[in-house]
């Protein structure tokens, strides 16, 4: 198990290199750079060149990238060009807000989807099943920024129950978390239902019933634990979506998270900050997927046996 985890950590290195390469070069393809937006209108060619020198932007793209990677491998994400502060500090200032939103949405998604998926599967083809499938289709297919706007219209403007944006007080997280959680809930409900339907046909549930196990225990204990593997898989990608999907939601609800920070950094061509944020995102995402893979081992002893090999 430990060896497996170590292996996964080592595998993160090439992933991070590839991500930094793609992001850095794509950013370079975008027209303009930060100097052109920072320099005063009457600055001379020489002034601009000197500013580039100071910001570490001189030389061609390969020279700059090599310098960047050199620093990155030493754990240094560099300075934000627009804020003149270390990227890592700026990132971690905003990261808790994004994390809070991500966990809020996942909480909402789990609380809705697992019970709904289970009751849809155990009442297969009944009205419960039908309703839950319609709901999950709705959640999946509504664009999240649009749902966000609808919720603001309804709950903030018309009813005035919840704030339309901002952060710092608990009620502010409710609408963005619901918006972000809706799609995830739709996805998780569908996978919980189909996974449970698959499991309820298995012989070992009949064995459990023949032993005299009560029906709700058969479902909660014997069936659910077997249905968990696909649910965990989707849950892992949901976590990724929650982090990534935050970009649009944070803009709609003016939530002070990393998503908005990244968009702003790209707009002003702050290479270091944008690349740094995306690299940090990648690190957290790969860590999440690693945790998901470890969670498999606890759900299914057959997978645990494979890891120890």
């Amino acid at each position, binding site marked *: 198990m430990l060896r497996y985890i170590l292996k996964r950590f080592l595998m993160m290195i090439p992933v991070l290199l590839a991500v930094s390469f793609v992001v850095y070069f794509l950013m370079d393809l975008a027209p303009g750079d930060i100097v052109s937006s920072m320099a005063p209108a009457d600055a001379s060619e020489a002034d601009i060149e000197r500013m580039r020198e100071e910001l570490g932007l001189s030389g061609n793209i390969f020279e700059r990238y090599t310098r960047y990677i050199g620093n990155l491998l030493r754990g240094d994400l560099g300075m934000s060009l627009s804020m003149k502060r270390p990227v890592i500090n700026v990132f971690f200032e905003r990261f808790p807000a994004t994390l809070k939103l991500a966990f809020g949405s996942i909480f909402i998604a789990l609380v809705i989807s697992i019970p709904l998926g289970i009751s849809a599967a155990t009442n297969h083809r009944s009205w419960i099943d039908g309703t839950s499938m319609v709901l999950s289709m709705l959640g999946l297919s509504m664009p999240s920024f649009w749902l966000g706007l609808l919720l603001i219209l309804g709950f903030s403007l018309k009813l005035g129950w919840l704030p339309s944006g901002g952060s710092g007080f608990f009620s502010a997280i409710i609408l963005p978390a619901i918006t972000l959680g809706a799609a995830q809930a739709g996805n998780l409900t569908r996978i919980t239902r189909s996974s449970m339907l698959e499991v309820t046909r*298995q*012989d*070992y549930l*009949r*064995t*459990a*019933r*023949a*032993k*005299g*196990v*009560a*029906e709700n225990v058969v479902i909660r204990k*014997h069936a659910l*634990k*077997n249905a968990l593997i696909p649910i965990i898989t989707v849950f892992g990608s949901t976590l990724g979506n929650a982090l990534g999907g935050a970009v649009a939601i944070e803009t709609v609800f003016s939530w002070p998270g990393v998503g908005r920070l990244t968009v702003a950094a790209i707009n002003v061509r702050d290479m270091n900050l944008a690349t740094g944020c995306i690299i940090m995102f990648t690190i957290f995402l790969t860590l999440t997927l690693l945790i998901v893979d470890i969670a498999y081992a606890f*759900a*299914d*002893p*057959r997978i645990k*046996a494979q890891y120890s090999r």
Partner: protein
Amino acid sequence: MKEKDLILDLQDLYVRFEVEDGVVHAVNGLSLQIERGKTLGLVGETGAGKTTTALSLLRLVSEPPGVVECERLIVDGKDVMALSQKELESFRGNDIAMIFQDPMTALNPVFTVGDQIAETIAIHENISQTEAQKKAIDMLELVGIQGERADEYPHQFSGGMKQRVIIAIALACQPRLLIADEPTTALDVTIQAQVLNLMRELRDHYKTSMIMITHDLGIVAQICDEVAVVYAGNIVEYGTLQDIFNRTKHPYTEGLFNSLPNIRDRKAELNPIKGLMPDPTNLPQGCPFHPRCPYADEKCKEEQSVKWVSDTHYIRCIAYEREGFHIKLEEKR
């Protein structure tokens, strides 16, 4: 019939499944009585309704789409059809237990075998979790598996070992009636013999009554006292082991015996029963076996009735009303 000490008294069981394509008539008026301590063999082809009958005894047929109706279903003095959900839960696994056909899929892959045995014990006996675990280890050793393997998962066991675990689960609470649904079909021949011997030993040890569902007449000869031959959801011939093997009367039973390979004449061709089991959504009128029966005449297409041959032996066949009728099997012997 004289009064007997019955462990099972089943009268007129009908099970049908109402599915989109029509109504599947799985069991059609089957009646069974088993005396305490006896073993009954339920023999027949795949799809004859043997497993459905067994599941009905535990009320485990899923309803809907299944519909189970019967005149009387009494197991060890309990009127099973009248039991509430709670009572059914304490009835299953305690009074009656079932060993399933395929050991590969009958165990839950994510729990240790020890836990799976202990679960039955914990449900039915008022003891602590640790005591249940201890009893589970005893059960494992009883079926010939080392106790320390209780912490292992089903995928770490071979097929024969898994079937032993399932037997341990079934016998953990010493049920009065044990149903074994083709317990050895999925195992290879050498393991079959071991598992069968184990079951016979444990049956005698606990004095359990048993229903052995099988299509293997060899197993019937080894383990059963009485035999019911099932065809299209009803018993076509019923009798003691001697009645069925030495005084075969029903053309279908004859067909079963004829289709066995002959070990003394290895060049002889197999002689299977021609045709297929009738479609259970559309059973033929009269005797359901008549389309495949070499002796059938016009009357067989219309009616069918029970004929008692002796005190212990009956058949569901009207051919014997004809003057001097007898199946050919007898002549060959």
